[in-house]
């Protein structure tokens, strides 16, 4: 039993289940799923479908965070890929053809890959801090997207493109399949190969990893490239949903929600060990929370207040100070290495010199 409770996923899953239970009590039709014309409908299905863009972005964010980095540019990349894809369809002769759509998808995602590689170059090769490096694209990216769409919100009519976000396959939303496929691919890539462990190693201790022969640079590079591609796919999904390229609104604040999902799922922002499953739970929790808020009649513009509360609760729960406080309440009196008014770590010691004394 103890092993179950201390499992990393326990609390995230509990939180999600609690949300679902509360929703069901408030509106029993929450968990009802109806079949219509061979397609499933219902609040749960909506959550699974609408969470797809966030799921993709959050998966990429998980890997980036594991390398001790962050990617603030995902929203901007979403805007760019959507703008590129839709512009291709718009300016093509035959917007409804599968071939045009295929080309649009390919180019859109390729552009996103290039942007991710750009981030990877700045961070892995030039050694720039991730928050600053991705900030540049966050600033400039939307501007680029606006230029591509000439400042307008490009709309197109294209059945194949529309299918991506709103179509159904064997009764389930196509977007769900995209989500699941991404989860499976990433999970396999990280855990069936050594990529996961090497990524964690780089995130926990980049210098030790380098000295141990790990290709740290390549791993960091790959993380940002992957984040870019996934954001590109999310951008396609978003624009497909509204059948428009809205450079200002696409992916607005999504990086923040993605980071929240990752943190909710149990991966630490400090980098190192990460959990894909945790992120999945985190994304579903956020989507369910959003659905709950909407159901409560709260205008969606006011939803961020709730998310602020969630962020605060999550970080408080994860805060070491709270743990110390709780331990102090429950455990016996015992010195554990710090005076009450010095929450800071202890000063460097004599007997275990931490940094090399030899002057370089």
């Amino acid at each position, binding site marked *: 039993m103890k092993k179950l409770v201390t499992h990393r996923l326990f609390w995230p899953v509990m939180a999600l289940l609690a949300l679902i239970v509360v929703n069901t009590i408030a509106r029993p039709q929450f968990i009802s799923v109806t079949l219509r014309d061979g397609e499933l409908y219902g609040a749960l299905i909506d959550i699974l479908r609408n969470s797809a863009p966030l799921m993709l972005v959050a998966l990429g964010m998980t890997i980036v965070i594991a390398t001790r980095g962050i990617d603030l540019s995902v929203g901007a990349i979403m805007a760019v890929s959507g703008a590129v894809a839709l512009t291709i369809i718009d300016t093509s002769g035959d917007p409804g053809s599968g071939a045009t759509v295929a080309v649009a998808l390919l180019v859109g995602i390729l552009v996103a890959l290039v942007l991710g590689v750009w981030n990877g170059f700045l961070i892995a090769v030039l050694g720039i801090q991730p928050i600053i490096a991705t900030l540049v694209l966050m600033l400039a990216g939307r501007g680029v997207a606006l230029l591509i769409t000439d400042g307008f919100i490009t709309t197109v009519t294209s059945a194949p493109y529309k299918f991506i976000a709103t179509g159904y396959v064997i009764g389930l939303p196509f977007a769900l399949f995209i989500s699941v496929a991404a989860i499976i691919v990433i999970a396999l890539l990280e855990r*069936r*190969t*050594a*990529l996961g*462990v*090497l990524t*964690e*190693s780089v995130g*926990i*201790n980049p*210098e*030790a*990893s*380098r*000295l*141990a*022969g*790990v*290709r740290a640079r390549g*791993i960091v590079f790959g993380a940002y490239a992957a984040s870019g591609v996934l954001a590109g796919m999310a951008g396609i999904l978003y624009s497909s949903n509204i059948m428009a390229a809205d450079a200002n609104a696409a992916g607005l604040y999504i990086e923040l929600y993605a980071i929240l999902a990752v943190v909710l799922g149990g991966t630490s922002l400090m980098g*190192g*060990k990460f959990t894909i499953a945790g992120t999945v739970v985190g994304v579903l929790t956020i989507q369910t929370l959003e659905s709950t808020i909407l159901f409560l009649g709260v205008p969606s513009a006011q939803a961020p207040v709730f998310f602020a509360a969630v962020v605060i609760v999550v970080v408080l729960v994860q805060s070491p100070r709270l743990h110390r406080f709780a331990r102090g309440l429950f455990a016996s009196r*015992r*010195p554990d*290495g*710090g*005076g*009450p*008014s*010095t929450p800071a770590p*202890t*000063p*460097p*010691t*004599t*007997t*275990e*010199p*931490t*940094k*090399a*004394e*030899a*002057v*370089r």
Partner: protein
Amino acid sequence: MTVNEDTPAIAMRGITISFPGVLALDHVDFTLRRGEVHSLMGENGAGKSTLIKALTGVYPIDSGTIAVDGEERVFSATADAQTAGISTVYQEVNLCANLSVGENVMLGHEPRGRAGIDWKAVHRLAAEHLAGLGLAVDTRSILSSHSIAIQQLVAISRAMVLDAKVLILDEPTSSLDRGEVERLFAVIRELRDQGVAILFVSHFLEQVYEISDRITVLRNGRLVGEHLAADLPRDSLVSQMIGRELDELDAISRTADRVIDRTAAPVLRATGVGRRGMLEPADLDIYEGEVVGLAGLLGSGRTELVRLLYGADKADSGTVEIGGRPARLTSPRHAIDHRIAFSSEDRRAEGIIADLTVAENIVLGIQAKRGWMRPVRRAERDQVVSEYISALGVRPADPDMLVRNLSGGNQQKVLLARWLATAPQLIILDEPTRGIDVGAKADIQRKVAELSAQGLSVVFISSELEEVLRLAQRVVVMRDRRRIGELDSSTVDLDLLIDYIANEGEGSAA
């Protein structure tokens, strides 16, 4: 209580501090008198740093008393110790390198006028305090533009601004060259003559004898003895510090007396390898099954040399041959491809991956070599891991334990296991026995001797020269970022080696 001449500045009586599973200090008494330099000696793990942390308010004490100038005090925070007049200057100078020298000296106590801080007065006062220690430094210059030696003296100067009655110097000479050490000692003597009580912690025996009036020795959390430095012969000090464990290590020594075949091409030959600002071009060669020791004081360039050889840092001069053929070693990956392994001296920052398990750490070397696309299968991993856990005696023998929860000695063993698992032909060990308990020290040295007898080449760096003499066939001596010579270990003993390190190549003794 009246403070008279005999009241010690610090009187610690019956100090006991325990942590879960370990008794760090066991009824230790310690006395520090005004106007004296007192050294606290002991091996790593003896309790030195714990005692100091009790005195500076970092650790609460379980039982015992601390009296400052005769008055009993309880420190519940570092600020309390500072208010009581106890100042500490750490090895990593705790100042703000981005601020000016003068500002660092006066920070928090800047004289203020009507229009805010009076900067002229700040710099004037700072200059006065620095001059009081014999320092003439541009107080307006940024602290980071000065050497560690100067920064340390600025830190001491700040302590004096705060009217410190007790000054604790924690490994102050680790990063200093000879001239800087002498200047520091001059400052220390000046302060002592002014009546400050100085607690000096260092593992450099020479310096301890040079500067101290008294020496207190701790071992395994207990007080072994307090002596006047003049009355304590060197071997007596060392045996008090180390105790009977010397015998276990002696048994290893005879394996070093092997004959090395130097007719074939050396495993590694480095010619003129150096880097501007880091190391003067140096040569090093090493043959199969040989242990070459690098000896020298801290800052002599030993770590720099091996890091250049391994490709951890890029050399800007020199050539390297592996097995007779030229090789380019500009990154750790190149070295690893040539079957060279490197265990860094800072195992916490550059060695172990703390949040991964013992098994994951051990397998990391092999995995990194194979690349991410070829994961090490479970069966192979378990087999390799259990083999090394038992071969090196890693305790607890739990492959799924996080490495951060192991003791220093076991962490070092895990690191060693990682490298040995890659079946290297040459392994570079930089201070592998630093900061670990005696038992683990012996285990590691025994293993190194064993492996070299089986053909593994080893470059071995240790500040404990006895270890170097015990394991190495040849000892390369370095000083001030230069290689100054080489000795055959069977022809020298410790005193000769120390003399060589200090004096070889110089005119007369400093």
